[in-house]
């Protein structure tokens, strides 16, 4: 398998081996060896928990620098609606367009139309679906990767409809290449992302194939410029841009994880946020529960995308601002409705294939794996079971498994080896 791309990197120099990231990782994908954290790539689902946990700033998100997009003739911003909840109340979406243009984009895309199109496609898909229920949303790339790593049998339940951002990228490229007489490859569709997982999903879609988007920039990367310019435009009332990229409430409502359509407002729709909650619900589905639900929307972040790890404001402020925008906007505007009705029957929204299972490569035959498992159980029985993490693995059971696989030693446990304790003492001695 080709090496997996992840949305962050660990700077060895800055890492002091404090174990915080390892403890935060929901898939046990981090080990700390010789005082440095490292990632087991196959098990990482790009949730960004480690990024938030690191107080040393040693783990950084890898988004693109803006200059990397200079090779394109024309740059279109496709901002996550979360962006619109990040500014003072007097700064309107149309002012934010000015801010994005000042930040170096040539145009800003109104992606409310694609949101509606994809919602329609989702509803049609759910109605037609004859396989096991519930159908699971692919909006959150972390959830898709969690299924690949931990619930491979449920991958078929992932909806095979592109998320709105992808369809927006495709349409933006088509639109501007036609309008400007440029080749689609000369036009960059750039997602302004609230999390680094989206960046990864663009670089390396779980469904295979290529993303319609050319890359992403993190919201913090453009925030200061956009804030300055948008505030100025709001203050002076002078705008370069005449239109608003947010014309109806439903676009923003999706960001608040509120159902949008008749099907989804019935009891057969569930919305779940926060990785531990998502894991609980997936465990229930594996046990055969929740079959009466049609559609399941899951987000790795508490509070949904407004709480992504590349946002600026705290989630509550962002959600309150989005809500007040929703209150002011019409439910749906005729222009959007017309465009949706015109485009819907002519476009294909389906993804090329279901994401494939992922995880550590299978080692040895069954007999060998049983031997290892029994060995791991034996080792686990002599470990203290306190999950202190000082051995460099997140739990005693994980260390036991690593030892049985020959990737760690029993002596890594401070309860079993005095030497290990001394080593840690030396490594983490505070200056007098």
């Amino acid at each position: 398998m080709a090496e997996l791309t992840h949305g962050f990197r660990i700077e060895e120099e800055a890492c002091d081996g404090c174990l915080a990231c390892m403890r935060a990782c929901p898939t046990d994908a981090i080990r700390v060896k010789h005082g440095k954290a490292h990632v087991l790539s196959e098990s990482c689902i790009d949730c960004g928990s480690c990024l938030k946990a690191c107080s040393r700033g040693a783990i950084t998100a890898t988004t693109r620098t803006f200059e990397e997009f200079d090779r394109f003739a024309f740059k279109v911003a496709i901002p996550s609606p979360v962006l619109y909840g990040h500014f003072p109340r007097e700064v309107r979406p149309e002012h934010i367009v000015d801010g994005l243009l000042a930040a170096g984009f040539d145009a800003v895309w109104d992606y409310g139309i694609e949101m509606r199109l994809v919602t329609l496609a989702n509803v049609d898909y759910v109605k037609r679906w004859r396989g096991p229920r519930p159908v699971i949303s692919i909006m959150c790339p972390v959830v898709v990767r969690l299924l690949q790593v931990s619930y491979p049998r449920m991958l078929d339940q992932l909806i095979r409809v592109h998320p709105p951002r992808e369809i927006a990228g495709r349409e933006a490229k088509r639109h501007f290449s036609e309008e400007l007489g440029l080749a689609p490859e000369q036009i960059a569709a750039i997602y302004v992302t609230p999390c680094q997982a989206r960046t990864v999903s663009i670089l390396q879609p779980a469904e295979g194939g290529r993303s319609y988007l050319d890359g992403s920039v993190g919201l913090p990367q453009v925030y200061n410029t956009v804030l300055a310019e948008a505030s100025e435009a709001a203050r002076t009332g002078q705008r370069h841009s005449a239109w608003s990229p947010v014309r109806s409430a439903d676009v923003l409502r999706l960001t608040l994880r509120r159902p949008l359509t008749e099907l989804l407002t019935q009891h057969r729709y569930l919305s779940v946020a926060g990785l531990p909650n998502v894991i609980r619900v997936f465990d229930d589905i594996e046990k055969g529960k929740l079959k009466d639900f049609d559609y399941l929307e899951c987000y790795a972040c508490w509070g949904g995308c407004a709480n992504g790890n590349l946002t600026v404001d705290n989630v509550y402020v962002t959600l309150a601002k989005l809500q007040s925008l929703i209150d002011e906007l019409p439910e749906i505007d005729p222009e959007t409705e017309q465009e949706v009705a015109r485009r819907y029957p002519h476009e294909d929204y389906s993804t090329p294939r279901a994401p494939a299972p992922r995880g550590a490569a299978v080692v040895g035959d069954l007999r060998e794996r049983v031997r290892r498992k029994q060995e791991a159980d034996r080792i686990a029985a002599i470990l203290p079971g306190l999950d202190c993490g000082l051995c460099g693995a997140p739990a005693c059971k994980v260390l036991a498994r690593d030892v049985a696989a020959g990737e760690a030693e029993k002596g890594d446990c401070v309860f079993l080896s005095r030497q290990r304790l001394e080593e840690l003492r030396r490594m983490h001695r505070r200056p007098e």
Partner: protein
Amino acid sequence: MSCCFRVHGRDFEKAGEASTEIKSLLKDLEVDPQIIRRAVVVAFEAEMNVVMYADEATVTFVLTDEDISIEAVDRGPGIPDVAHAMEEGWSTATDEMREMGFGFGMGLPNIRRNSDLFDISTQVGVGTAVTARIKLDDHG
């Protein structure tokens, strides 16, 4: 490799725990996902039958190089008409059970469908024993 679980009748709170443990064990052993799915369905349905109808049972899981066997031996009412119970959609479940999403008459048929070898023996007033085997392929 084998393990044993006690399952108690009417204990809906803990229902599904044995099959969840069997699942995580098979996952740890990196057994083929299709086989895990079948084994978990078998274990889950067997467990639910005990929870719904019997007093208590022992569920035994055995893994060999050739196959997985799951055996549920319960102390309970037994089944008067086994042929009927093997029909899809036939159930003696109460409304309460149906409200919880069970009792659609798919339990035993589901176990048989997902196993390569299936055996049931029952005695009214004494109990029921269900044995299912799932063959492992070359990849285990």
